[in-house]
């Protein structure tokens, strides 16, 4: 196997379905991801960054979308977290990326959500952050976090 193959090979993958509006089980998937990464010896600071990102992403699906799938992919040098949802999409990405901007309803805010920090927070914790969206269809987030490479 040549070098680039080794780098692009998915060593481990887990997928978690997320149901929109399911506040009761919200947060479970990010918790499972955290435990998995611990078992394979990922550095605790990287786990923290992934846990925060995964939690924010999971909450976004729960709050705004109909349903979604979060998947964690471990590569040799990086971890890729993707979240695909079937939902309303984002009308103005630039606006959504602004800290404090939120389309959360009054109800959600009362529950303590919708502070408008979700996407900015994810971006802050990610090494690369990609967002593709189509209004009325859904959103896909791709978050890459680089590993230290010490294990190679």
């Amino acid at each position: 196997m040549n070098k680039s193959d080794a780098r692009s090979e998915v060593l481990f993958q887990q997928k978690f379905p997320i149901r929109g509006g399911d506040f009761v089980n919200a947060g479970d998937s990010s918790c499972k991801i955290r435990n998995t990464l611990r078992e394979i010896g990922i550095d605790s600071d990287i786990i923290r960054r992934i846990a925060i990102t995964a939690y924010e992403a999971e909450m976004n699906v729960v709050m705004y979308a109909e349903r979604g799938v979060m998947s964690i992919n471990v590569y040799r040098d990086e971890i890729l977290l993707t979240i695909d949802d079937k939902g309303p999409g984002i009308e103005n990405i630039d606006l959504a990326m602004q800290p404090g901007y939120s389309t959360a309803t009054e109800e959600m805010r009362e529950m303590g959500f919708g502070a408008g920090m979700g996407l900015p927070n994810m971006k802050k914790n990610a090494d690369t952050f990609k967002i593709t969206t189509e209004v009325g269809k859904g959103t896909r987030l791709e978050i890459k976090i680089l590993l230290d490479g010490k294990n190679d």
Partner: protein
Amino acid sequence: MTERRFAHSIKVNDAKCIGCVACMKVCPTKAIRVRQKKAHISYDRCIDCGGCLRVCPHDAIIPLTTQLADLDRFKFKIALPSPVLYTQFGQEVMPNEVLAILKEIGFDHVYDEALVCEMINVATEEYLDENKSLRPMISSMCPVVVRLIQRLFPSLCRNILPIEPPREIAAKNLRAEVSEQHNLNPEKVGIIHITPCSAKMVSINHPESMARSHLDGAISIREVYNKVMMKLKRETGMLMMQTQNRISGIGIGWAIEGGEIRGLKYTNSVSVSGLLDTIRILEDVESGRLKNIEYLECLICPDGCIGGPLTVENRFVAKSNVLRLMRHFGGKKRVNGVLVKRLYRENFFSFKWAVEPKAFPPLDKDRNVAIQKLKSKEGLIKRLPGTDCGVCGAPDCKTLAEDVVRGYAKLDDCIYMCKGDLQSNGEKK
């Protein structure tokens, strides 16, 4: 730095253990296995929560605390009771009576920790005022919570408030004061915490934030209970206060959950008690979900220290006693804020070093091997019955699967796997 092993405060008495699975089932870090009809504690995983001690139906789990007889090596013995002690002897008994009796059962001096609790409140506020970038900060009061964070939530080690708990600060202060007053070698002064749990013993023997604890030992409330009770009965009405202690209502409140945050000006603080709820809230903190909270008080025992495994009075009565004492002594702050702030600047309360993460080891040091092992673990979990019966000697099927991939157990240890044919015959539809 080399990894120091946790000293431990809990031991299995093999003579009494019959190998039931009670302790193994409650252990939050899956540190117990039953082999050859005896429970074995893995001290690499144990965080000294005392859960096993509580549930053992055979009294086979022994807390390793200091005994009264061990105190003879000290020239001058000081008792530093947890405020929980005051709540153990019924409604009529006041803290000063308990303190006076401690002086009659072998201590040369007693000190009430409650006032120091107020000092720690002030120091905590100073810290929170000056350091605003990380939230929530988590109390270092409960030694089990500190170890739980090191083990299960390593990334939250930096959230631990780097201020020593009242018992340590009280002892630090006392040693200097008493050895000077009585012209003693500080080494000959024995400062003994009277404790509702054995976990304090671990934080004394192997502190996580300094080289050496200021305390010399911890005697359990159970150990002194009978002696104090007998004297109380005999000398009712005769006990006049000889000790010079000022009792603080706020400090006494630290014996129950919420006591620590009650004295803080930061009202956006949260208190949690009990093992499962503590784990749940730490999970939320790690997800970044509770950043709007300033301070988090977590106590492993239900309802706080009054729920400690080495107490005598049931915790509901003890709680009522705490509330009554708090009403009696009032919520007025007695501490000298200016002095405490000066001491805070001199780092009198600070950790010597930060608490270090001690995460459980991954399935393998090599990440690729660990991933392979994780995959085979998941395969095994699917094959195992999922009944979590514990007969294999592991607390649940998931843990057995993990033990198998780590090489500590065999799949055959599971009776369902062993007798797979039998089972499938029995389940004919």
